[in-house]
């Protein structure tokens, strides 16, 4: 069966950055986060370049998230102080 190895990004130009970040994230999630290490700096550099790309792509595709959804993370952040 013809099958992709990696999940695509919204925009093809972000695919490579997304794959690099995803690879790092999956390793971090299994080997660090699930074992109690909540420090997420491991993939921070991959995350930041990928975010720059995807935010630009979202603008180009005219994708806007509902306020409620954006606030989901923000309000939680405000409610719970960083440990």
């Amino acid at each position, binding site marked *: *069966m013809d*099958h*992709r*190895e*990696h*999940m*695509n*990004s*919204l925009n093809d130009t*972000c695919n490579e950055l*997304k794959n690099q*970040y*995803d690879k790092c*994230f*999956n390793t971090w*999630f*299994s080997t660090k*986060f*699930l074992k*109690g290490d*909540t*420090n*997420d700096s491991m993939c921070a550099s991959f*995350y930041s370049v*990928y*975010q720059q790309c*995807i*935010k630009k792509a*979202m603008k180009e595709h005219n*994708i*806007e*998230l*509902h306020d409620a*959804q*954006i606030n*989901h*993370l923000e309000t*939680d*952040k405000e409610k*719970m*102080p*960083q*440990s």
Partner: protein
Amino acid sequence: MKVWMSEHIFNHPWETVVAAAWQKYPNPITPSVLGTDVIDRKVVDGKLKSLRLVSSQWGFPRWTKPLIGDANICYASETSEVDPAHRQMVLKTRNLTFYNYITVDETVRYTPHPKDDKKTLLTQEAVVKVHGVPLTHYMEDLLASKISFNASKGRQAIEWVISKIDREVQDLANSAAKTADELITTTRHQIDDITSKTMHTMDEIQSAAKKSFEEVHDLSSLPPTASMPKL
């Protein structure tokens, strides 16, 4: 409004299932999901919170086009929270496309099975609301049946990902074992090499030492008359 609920048990521990859940796409079972992008992600109070944008092909029937419009790619937002301390993962997905006519709110929860810690319980709930268009109930039924169909495919997809991860881990273990074997063999060769080189060098040193000792000995054994100029 239409509510749809479902439960499923995975014969894998929670950690395995939630790791697979992040790697659910791409898979050959649900090719309609075209892309997933992380829009925001942070660890808050020990919990991982993520916001993802999911792009997919919904494949609406043609007759819905005049009612709600046409969209090749539909977008949905997925908010999720993973709490490793309480072994819980919750994902909430809501469509962004056709939002004015249709809302599909899906909640997926992964928790350890209450009676068997080595198994994982998946509970899934979807609330479908169609409004402002004719044939509301018919469309709701249609979407609910589609969700039901996709949910079973989604579970198969998780299983597929788990077996894929297992294969990769096995491959990694095999290659690690192979590397260890190679390393031992190489090291042994190197040790042999060093030993033979060392032995060779030792031989050389010994013979050189012997030679110079003999030379010194010869020198010292020469009669003084021969070595000392006569005054």
